[in-house]
């Protein structure tokens, strides 16, 4: 059965909205399941200092409950919460009383810089090494690349970060771990994140390049006298990239997860560092803001990657997608 592009698009968007709705319900349930009710948390620091009587506290509580809508039924509370969140009103941080939205925006550039640099390093490594390895499958270079990808895949970002730090912290004039985000501090975490990101696309790209090399058109190109570098660059690279795109979503998820750990290891002032600090100090509004924004980002990016892949390669089917 053939379906038109428009109806496919409608279905994709409907699925995306549905997923986001479920995610929002999940986050709302999680927020409400936090120990201690929100007013207790709010009253916490006040109770000790002021000489409020029990009646006054109870009055304040009741007023605040009405204000926050906590006396309403749960579905209505969810509707109000969602309306606030969608408007971009994510509440105020418990720690420094700043709007959560501003906190997120303030930490975003550092995360984007690290994520972008890490992705660049990762994609560069994957592309370059895959091209090298595919020139002679089974050769020494191929084996070396395989060892790299095995070790890289087995080395979580926080571990390679610690190892890199232990090396560079000891060399004189080595790496500065403290201080604000700067270009001089970016290269090491970017390298760590890149090495952690590279193995999956590297393996896929290598095997796709090897497969393409065996096809008739590539053999014909070699027979015409096309050199090995030009063969990859002009002939086999493009068809080999399509299957790699299917892993873009997983790569992205790995990048987000890896950046939380990398930012913690390198004290990089990004979103990952923000949320780890917020969890440690039970700053629920900041945690909620981070979770909402990052989940939405990952879900949307995944949908876009899927759509992109269908655009590049219309023959893609679920079975090919499923086998990682």
């Amino acid at each position, binding site marked *: 059965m053939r379906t038109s592009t428009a109806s496919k698009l409608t279905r994709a968007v409907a*699925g995306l909205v*549905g*997923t986001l709705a*479920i*995610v929002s319900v999940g*986050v709302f349930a*999680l*927020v409400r*399941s*936090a*120990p201690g009710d929100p007013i207790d948390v709010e009253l916490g620091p006040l109770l000790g200092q002021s000489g409020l009587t029990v009646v006054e506290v109870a009055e304040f509580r009741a007023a605040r409950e009405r204000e926050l809508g906590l006396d309403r039924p749960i579905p209505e509370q969810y509707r109000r919460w969602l309306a606030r969140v969608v408007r971009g009103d994510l509440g105020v941080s418990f720690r420094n009383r700043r709007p959560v939205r501003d906190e997120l925006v303030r930490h975003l550039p550092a995360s984007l810089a690290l994520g972008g640099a890490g992705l660049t390093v990762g994609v560069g490594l994957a592309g370059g090494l895959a091209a090298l390895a595919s020139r002679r499958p*089974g050769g020494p270079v191929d*084996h070396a690349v395989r060892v790299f990808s*095995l*070790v890289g*895949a*087995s*080395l*979580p*970002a*926080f*571990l390679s970060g*610690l*190892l890199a*730090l*232990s090396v560079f*912290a*000891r060399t004189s004039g080595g790496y500065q771990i403290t201080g604000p985000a700067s270009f001089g501090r970016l290269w090491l975490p970017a390298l760590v994140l890149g090495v952690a990101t590279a193995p999956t696309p590297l393996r896929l790209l290598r095997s796709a390049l090897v497969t393409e090399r065996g096809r008739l058109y590539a053999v014909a190109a070699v027979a015409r006298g096309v050199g090995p570098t030009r063969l990859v660059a002009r002939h086999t690279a493009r068809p080999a990239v399509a299957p790699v795109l299917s892993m873009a*979503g997983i790569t992205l*998820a*790995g990048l*987000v*997860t890896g950046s*939380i*750990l990398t930012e*913690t*290891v390198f004290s990089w002032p990004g979103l990952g560092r923000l*949320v*780890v600090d*917020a*969890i*440690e100090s039970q700053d*629920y509004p900041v*945690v*909620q803001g981070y*979770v909402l924004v*990052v*989940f939405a980002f*990952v*879900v949307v990016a*995944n*949908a876009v990657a899927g759509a992109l892949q269908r655009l590049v390669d219309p023959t893609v089917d*679920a*079975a090919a*997608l*499923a*086998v*990682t």
Partner: protein
Amino acid sequence: MRRRRPDSPRGALLFGGTALLAVLLAVVALAPWLGRFDPTEQLVGPRFQGPSQAHWLGTDRFGRDVASRMLHGGRQTLALSGALLVALLAVGTVVGAVVGLCGRLVDTAGQWVIDGAVSVPAVLVALAFVGFRGPSLATVLGGAALVWWAPFARLARALVRSALAEPSAVAARGLGAGRVELLRHEVWPRLRGPMLLLGAVEAGQLVAAIAGLSFLGFGAQPPSPEWGAMLEEGRAYLATAPHLVYAPGAAVLLTVLALTCISEGLRDRLDRQSQVVAQ
């Protein structure tokens, strides 16, 4: 053209990985007998000591024996990730198979749920759970399990569908084979290899995720010895006592490396099998 033995080094990868994992499991399981000190005992003696004859891997900031802590540290992580992996495999396979076998409506709905769950990174869900429920290993694992079954379900569904479309399955159905027979003789043989492969892939991810979340301070809580938690403790003394990071770091690396080798070896074997079938 030089001919290479078809089995090398592919078989070696699977064999080496399995052997490494077996050794690691044995060492960790025998920790109470192999370790020479209590992992949480704060010994009177030198702290931050490098490797010596009494303490093979040195001591930490409380004078605890790093080697014993390392041996014990793997027990919780490996036992829990093993149990969780089996549970995720079972749940994912059953859900995927049911979705794949049922009618169109269930399939569409199921696929949507599975795709949605796959698109949310499990570590982030675990982090969200920790953020609102407080840090503990159980919270981390529960949060991760909420979406981690989905990759297994997606693969199982795809495999069930493609297996039922195979000519032999169609023929068997035409000859009057029942659902149980179809599942046992047509679907299961085509299901188990790829599912095992995905299990090995995800097992490595699981161990790394647990260690990573413990490293952030959200998993295993002190003084319980856990590799990630040990890394976090050692991090502050990276410049002066790097052995505190090297020992648990090597343990995590070797475990994940063993699982990665196993999954690569399984992948090669599966690829070869499907090539043989194609020929």
